[in-house]
């Protein structure tokens, strides 16, 4: 059974349709990446999945169970299984690194403070920031903040991690430190779904690539298929502009 | 016997009240105009004057913005007669409000002077504008855009501020409300209606000002 399944998912901002009948499925441990031109709806798709934008039609199933996005209880349960890392890191400015990572486990999941902190320290060590536990977000570089954001997402022990262009807001020198962390997660077998412009990385790490344009998934396949032999004209156009042979 | 709400004595007096509202608007308008003139001279004194001009203006602004308008008018109305200046309640209120407004408008216009952008003036000069043309086409529009929201806000506040004229017997909206109250004793009804009239006046005024600001000066203001 696929861990995550989308069937004919639709969404719009007011009257403007943004997602148009998206359908695909994700097996446990798969790493799916979503590429495509700006405005194609990639980030919107992630936002819909995590419940920040209500879908206007279609179904989303997690482990076979359909999610009713209008039901608050369903959405809350979903969010404990699906974690998202944003392009702008969105760390809580008024808390230090440790508290940023522990606040959700403690306040939402009711974990005891000591347990949450122990696990948080482990995660922060893994992303290479064990020495910055009490730093505040404005004292960290973009790359460091993004790594904290990843640790924060992992603290909730999600089954699926969504990564929304996590390197797009970073200075070029800082991109690799974040990609290294994502590689670690991939190696651990975490199911991931990410949107990215880093094509070399996408190619290296993904098990499946989806190409989106105008709110629709127009083509999907292995990285080799999409990058070396794209079928659809739109995909071909995009790939040829992005990759240099 | 419990108090029962009864508007029947009030409706026939609505035109009377609205007449008072008109007077309120007039007072606010006159005081605002007078205040703008004071404000212009005051701001210029603060921006360009030497210490002998600046200090008195600073003192005037400080005094009038840190003390209540009501007491300022009390002073003008009750203290000046001792020194030979007898003013009718209407005039005392008008002068008091004008002086009060003048102080705030000095502050606002001073901020307007300070907001003038050197680079804009230099650009205008290099394009061949004369000093006068620079003022008319570059500086003034810029200042009006910055100043329009605070000026509008002050005007609305002044319109509400005219209500204290009632204390001196001036028959603007609140004053007439007091009259109706002493005639009919329907206090809650008359003051609620008065409140509603003030709310409506200010909404209409804000709306009109916001529209005028957008059209004339490209200044953006929220109505809500």
């Amino acid at each position, binding site marked *: 059974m696929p861990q995550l399944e989308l069937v004919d998912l639709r969404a719009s901002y007011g009257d403007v349709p943004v997602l148009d009948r998206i359908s695909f499925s994700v097996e446990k441990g798969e790493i799916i990446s979503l590429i495509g031109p700006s405005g194609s709806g990639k980030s919107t798709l992630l936002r819909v999945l995590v419940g920040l934008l209500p879908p206007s039609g279609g179904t989303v199933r997690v482990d076979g169970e359909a999610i009713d996005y209008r039901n608050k209880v369903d959405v809350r349960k979903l969010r404990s299984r699906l974690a998202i890392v944003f392009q702008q890191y969105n760390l809580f400015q008024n808390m230090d690194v440790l508290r940023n990572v522990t606040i959700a486990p403690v306040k939402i999941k009711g974990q005891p403070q000591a347990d949450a902190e122990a696990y948080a320290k482990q995660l922060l060590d893994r992303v290479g920031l064990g020495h910055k536990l009490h730093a505040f977000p404005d004292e960290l570089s973009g790359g460091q903040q993004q790594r904290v954001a990843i640790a924060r997402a992992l603290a909730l022990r999600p089954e699926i991690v969504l990564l929304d262009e996590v390197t797009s807001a970073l200075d070029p020198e800082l991109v690799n430190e974040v990609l290294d962390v994502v590689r670690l997660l991939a190696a651990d077998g975490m199911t991931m779904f990410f949107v990215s412009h880093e094509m070399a990385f996408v190619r290296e790490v993904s098990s499946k690539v989806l190409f989106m344009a105008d709110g629709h998934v127009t083509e999907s396949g292995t990285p080799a298929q999409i990058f070396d032999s794209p079928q659809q004209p739109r995909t071909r156009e995009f790939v040829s502009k992005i990759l240099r042979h | 016997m419990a108090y029962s709400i009864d508007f029947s004595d009030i409706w026939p007096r609505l035109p009377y009240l609205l007449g008072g509202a008109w007077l309120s608007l007039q007072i606010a308008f006159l005081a605002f105009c007078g205040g703008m003139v004071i404000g212009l001279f005051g701001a210029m004194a603060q921006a360009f004057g030497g210490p002998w001009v600046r200090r008195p203006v600073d003192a005037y602004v400080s005094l009038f913005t*840190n003390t209540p308008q009501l007491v300022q008018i009390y*002073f003008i109305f009750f*203290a000046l007669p001792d020194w030979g200046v007898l003013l009718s309640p209407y005039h005392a209120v008008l002068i008091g409000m004008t002086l009060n407004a003048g102080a705030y408008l000095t502050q606002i216009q001073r901020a307007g002077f300070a907001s003038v952008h050197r680079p804009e003036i230099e650009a205008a000069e290099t394009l061949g504008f004369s000093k006068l043309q620079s003022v008319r086409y570059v500086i003034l529009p810029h200042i009006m855009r910055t100043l329009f929201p605070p000026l509008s806000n002050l005007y609305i506040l002044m319109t509400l501020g005219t209500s204290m004229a009632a204390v001196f017997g001036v028959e603007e909206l609140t004053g007439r409300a007091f009259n109706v109250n002493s005639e009919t004793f329907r206090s809650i009804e008359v003051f609620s209606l008065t409140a509603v009239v003030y*709310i409506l006046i200010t909404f209409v005024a804000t709306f009109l000002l916001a529209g005028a600001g957008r059209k004339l000066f490209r200044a953006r203001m929220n109505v809500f």
Partner: protein
Amino acid sequence: MLQQLFDAAPRFFSYYNILFLLQALVATFLLSLVGCVLGFLLGFVLAVTRRTTGWRMAPLRALVVTYTEAFRRIPFLVTLMLVFFAFQAARLDTSVFVVALCSVCLIATAFIAEIVRSGLDSVHRNQWDAATAMNLSYLQTLRYVVVPQAWKVMLPPAFSFFVLFIKDTALASQIGVIELTFAGKVMANKGFPAALTFGTVLVLYFALSWPLARFGRWMEARLAPARAR
């Protein structure tokens, strides 16, 4: 002219009179302070209510919007009269000070609700997104994320409002509250020259308002840099 003032001054500045004026000053200060503190608490509740989403809260939100928009557009004197006669009609036998305090509170709540709302809005949308995505509830997000960041933006304007309102309390004299303006009227009625009494009252208001205003500006300068993040 001025001679008359100098003659009257010693009698005016008698021990009892000075005490009276100072008590009135304290009443003025307290009227604004207590009214604004209560106004802040209630205004906060109103602003938080106004920011909720969901149709169940819609009637409450409509009420809040009507209240805040209305009470910011009524002159203080009219509010004072309404509260005064409402208390009378309800046969509530309280002092005029309490009536004035309620009026201050009503108006302060409306204005401060707007100030709080701006403060909450100043926190970037993405802080809310991150919190929601982690399942923090509306109130939890406010408590742990938004308010800790927003209070620095809210406090200076709220304090400013308090200082401004000290001047509006002068109108409470019209219903007989023994605050500074009323004290001035009493002294003038006793026969002291109007220039002396109202002049002194003006000086006392200045002495109260100006230092507080300066403090407010200092506070804004200290808290504002934090906004540059």
